[in-house]
C-alpha cells in the first residue's frame, strides 16, 4: 500500500514516563490512581498542576465520572481535554491527540494519563457491562469474558496458520524474564516453557499464562514542544510516526488481522525507516495471539508467519528482538486502561535512558502498538507509533 502524506509530529516530544506501582487489589478509586500518576508527572517535570493545560484520561472504573469530573476533582484547568475510552489503544491514541493539540497551539503541556482501580469483584462488573454488543451477544454465552473471545480467535489463528501453544509460550516466557528485571512487575517468579504448557486451561486453547492478571495501577506521560522540554531539562523522545484505525475489516469472519494493515505504510513512511530498524517492540499482549497479529500487520513479517519469525528471535531485553521489555501486561499486570499505556511508557523509558527494567543496549527507536476493546467478537481499536530518541 502506498503511504499517504500525513503531516509529521515535528517539534512535538514525549517526556516524563510515569508508572505508579501496581497492586493486585486496591481499596482506592480510579481517581486516586490517576491523581497519583499526575503527581508523578508534576514532580518528574518540576512543574505545577497549573502548568498542565491539556489533559487526556483513559479509565474503565471512573464511573460516574469522566475526564470532566476529574478536572474539578483534581483541580486542573485545561484548555484541551479528552476522554479516550479505547482500552489497549489508549496510549498511542492519547499521544496522537495530544501531539496535534500541542502542534496547533491548543495546549502547551498535555498530561496523558490512564489509570484504573481493581476492587474485589470489580472485574466481573466490568465484564458484565462492557458494551451493548457484549452484553447481549457474547457475555450471556458462558460469561467467559475476553478469555472466551480471544480463545475463539486463538483457535481460528492456530487452525489457519499452524501456530502452536509452544509458539505462544515462548512469548510469555520471554516476557516473564523481562519482568524479573522490572521491580514494579506483579509477577515475581520465573516462568518456564514447561510450566506454561502444563498450566490449567481457562478457555481452550487459552491457558492460564496466556491471560493477564487484572490489577490496579496507573501510567502517564507528558506531551510538549521540544523547546519546552529543553528549557526544563527533561529527557524526551520524538513521535516519529503514529497511526490509528477503528473497526477495520468487519467482513473477516474471524479476526486474523487488525486495522494496522490499512495504515502500516503511513507509519513506516513517517518514521523514515523499515520495520527491522527498530531496537525494541512493545505490543499489546492480552493475549499472545494478538502479539503475533501485530508482528505481522506492522510489517515485521508476513501474514501467518509470526510463529516462524519469532522462533528465530530471542525476545528478552538482551535478545535479538527485545519485546515487551518490562514484562508487558502478561507479567507486569493489566491495570485496566493503563494496559494501553504500559508499552508506550516503557518504550519512552528505554529510548530516553530512564530505565526501571533492564535497558536494551543502544535503544534509540521503539515500535509501540495498541489494541483495544473487544466490543463483541474482536478488538475494534488499533494503533501504533514509533518513538525515537532525540
Amino acid at each position, binding site marked *: 500500500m502506498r503511504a499517504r502524506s500525513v503531516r509529521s509530529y515535528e517539534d512535538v516530544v514525549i517526556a516524563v514516563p510515569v508508572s505508579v506501582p501496581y497492586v493486585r487489589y486496591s481499596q482506592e478509586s480510579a481517581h486516586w490512581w490517576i491523581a497519583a500518576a499526575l503527581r508523578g508527572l508534576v514532580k518528574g517535570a518540576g512543574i505545577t498542576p497549573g502548568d498542565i493545560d491539556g489533559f487526556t484520561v483513559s479509565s474503565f472504573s471512573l464511573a460516574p465520572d469522566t475526564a470532566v469530573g476529574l478536572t474539578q476533582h483534581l483541580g486542573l484547568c485545561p484548555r484541551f481535554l479528552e476522554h479516550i475510552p479505547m482500552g489497549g489503544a489508549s496510549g498511542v491514541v492519547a499521544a496522537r491527540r495530544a501531539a496535534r493539540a500541542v502542534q496547533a497551539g491548543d495546549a502547551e503541556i498535555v498530561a496523558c494519563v490512564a489509570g484504573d482501580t481493581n476492587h474485589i469483584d470489580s472485574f466481573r462488573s466490568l465484564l458484565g457491562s462492557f458494551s451493548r454488543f457484549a452484553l447481549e451477544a457474547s457475555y450471556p454465552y*458462558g460469561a*467467559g*469474558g475476553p478469555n472466551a473471545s480471544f480463545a475463539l480467535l486463538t483457535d481460528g489463528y492456530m487452525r489457519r496458520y499452524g501456530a502452536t501453544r509452544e509458539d505462544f509460550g515462548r512469548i510469555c516466557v520471554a516476557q516473564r524474564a523481562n519482568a524479573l528485571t522490572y521491580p514494579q512487575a506483579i509477577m515475581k517468579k520465573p516462568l518456564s516453557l514447561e510450566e506454561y504448557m502444563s498450566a490449567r486451561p481457562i478457555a481452550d486453547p487459552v491457558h492460564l499464562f496466556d491471560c493477564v492478571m487484572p490489577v490496579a495501577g496507573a501510567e502517564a506521560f507528558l506531551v510538549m514542544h521540544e523547546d519546552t522540554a529543553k528549557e526544563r531539562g527533561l529527557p524526551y523522545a520524538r513521535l516519529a510516526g503514529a497511526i490509528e484505525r477503528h473497526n477495520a475489516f468487519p467482513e473477516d469472519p474471524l479476526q486474523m488481522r487488525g486495522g494496522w494493515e490499512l495504515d502500516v505504510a503511513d507509519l513506516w513512511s513517517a518514521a523514515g525507516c523499515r520495520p527491522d530498524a527498530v531496537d525494541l517492540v512493545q505490543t499489546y499482549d492480552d493475549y499472545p495471539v494478538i502479539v503475533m497479529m501485530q508482528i505481522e500487520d506492522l510489517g515485521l513479517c508476513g501474514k501467518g508467519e509470526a510463529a516462524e519469525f519469532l522462533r528465530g528471535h530471542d525476545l528478552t531485553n538482551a535478545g535479538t528482538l527485545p519485546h515487551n521489555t518490562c514484562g508487558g501486561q502478561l507479567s507486569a499486570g493489566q491495570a485496566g486502561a493503563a494496559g494501553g499505556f504500559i508499552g508506550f511508557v516503557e518504550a519512552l523509558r528505554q529510548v530516553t535512558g530512564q530505565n526501571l527494567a533492564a535497558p536494551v543496549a543502544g535503544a534509540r527507536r521503539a515500535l509501540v502498538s495498541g489494541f483495544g476493546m473487544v466490543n463483541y*467478537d474482536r478488538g475494534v481499536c488499533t494503533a501504533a507509533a514509533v518513538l525515537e530518541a532525540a
Partner: protein
Amino acid sequence: MSEHTPLARPPRKDPTAVTPLAHRPPGSPSRAGLFFAAHAARGAFALQECGECGTRIWPPRDACPKCLSADIPFTPAPTGGEVIAETTIRVTHELFYRGRGPWRVGTVQLDCGPVVTANLHRDVTTGARVRMIARLDLAGTPLMMALPAKETPLMDEDPALRGLTAHPRHRRVLVTDGRSALGQETARALLKAGAAKVFLGVADAWKPFPGAERIAAEEGIEIVPLDLSDTRSVVDLAGAIGGKTDIIVNTADHVRPGGVMGQSVALARESFETNVFGLQRLAQVFAPGMLGRANDGVNNAVAILDVTPVAALSNWNVYGMHSASAAARLSVLQGLRAELRDGGIRVMSVFIGPVEDDWHQAVPPPKLAPKAVAAAVVKALAEGIEESFTGDVARDVFARWSADPKVLERELQR
C-alpha cells in the same frame, strides 16, 4: 461425535443438603434485542434484515452497518451455518455458569451472512454444518444455539440445550384438570415424553367423569384432588406434592357461552374463579416451592405452562365473558413471568382455539382435538418455547393480532 449415555433418573433429593441457590444468568438485551427475544420466545430464529440493502445483521442494532438505514426489522432468517472456531469456557466469574461448566461456545458463520457467537451442542464441532435455534435462557435473555444439522442420538439431552428448555423427561408434572379429555391426554403425552410422574388434579372426585377409570389405571399417573376455585384445596395439594412438582401444566378452563349482557355475573364469576384466581392460587401456593428447587439439577423445578384460550388476545363476543377471563388470565401470566424470571422458573403459554368438547358444541370447525393440544404442550416444554399457537384458529388469530389488534377486534365480532 462421542457416544452419550442417556440421562439417568436422578436419585431422591437429600433433605439435609443445603439448597443450591438459583443464580440468574447475566445478560440484558437492548430494545432491539428484545425484538430478537420476542421471536425467540415463540421459537423463531429471526435476525434483522435491512429493508434497503438486504444486509442481515447481528448483533441487534439500531441502524444498518452497511447503509445506515433504520429500516431493519427482524424477519425469519435461514438457520444454516458452519462452526469456524470453538472454545470450552472453564473459568468464569458468573455464579450461574460456574455451576454449569465447562461451557462450549463457538463462532458460527451463518449462511445468511452474519458471524455469531453461539452455544454449541455437544455433538457439534469446528467445521460442522449446524442448524441454529434461538431460545430464552432462564433470565429471559435470548440466546443462539448451534445444533447438529441432522438429528443425533439423545440430542435433546445436551445439558446446555436442556437448560434452554423445560423438557418433561425425568420431571414430575402436575396437570391441573383431569376431568377433561384435554387434561387426560396431556397427562398421557407427558408420560410418554419421559415425565417421571404425572399428578392429575381432579375436582369433586365423587362426581363421575368420562375416562375416569382408564386414566386412574395408568401407571405413572396419580389422581390427586384439586379444585382451583378453592384455596384450601390448592394448599392441601401443595402440602402433599409441592416439594416434588417440577412442572405445572394448567389445562383448567371454565368455559360457558355468553356475552357481557347475556351471561349472569354469577356464572362469569365462576369462570374467573377457575381461570384467573385459580391460576393465581396455583402460583401463590406452588411457585415458592418451585423457586427453591430451581437449581436442583436434572429434575429441577422449571416451568409453569398454561393452556391459554387465544381469545385472551381479543374478545370473541359469543363467549364474551369467557374471553374476558382469558384476557385476565394472560395478564396474570405476564405478571407472574416477571415475578419468577429472576428465580429461574419459566412461565409459558400454549394458545389454543376452541377445543372439540361439550362447551363448544355450537362452534363450527376447525376445532382442536385434545390430543393435538397435548402434543403441543409437550413440544413447547421440550423445545423451550415460551409462547406457541396451536391449531388453525389460534394461529389465525395471532397473525391477525400481529397485523393490527383493532382490526382483529372487529373481525372476531359476530
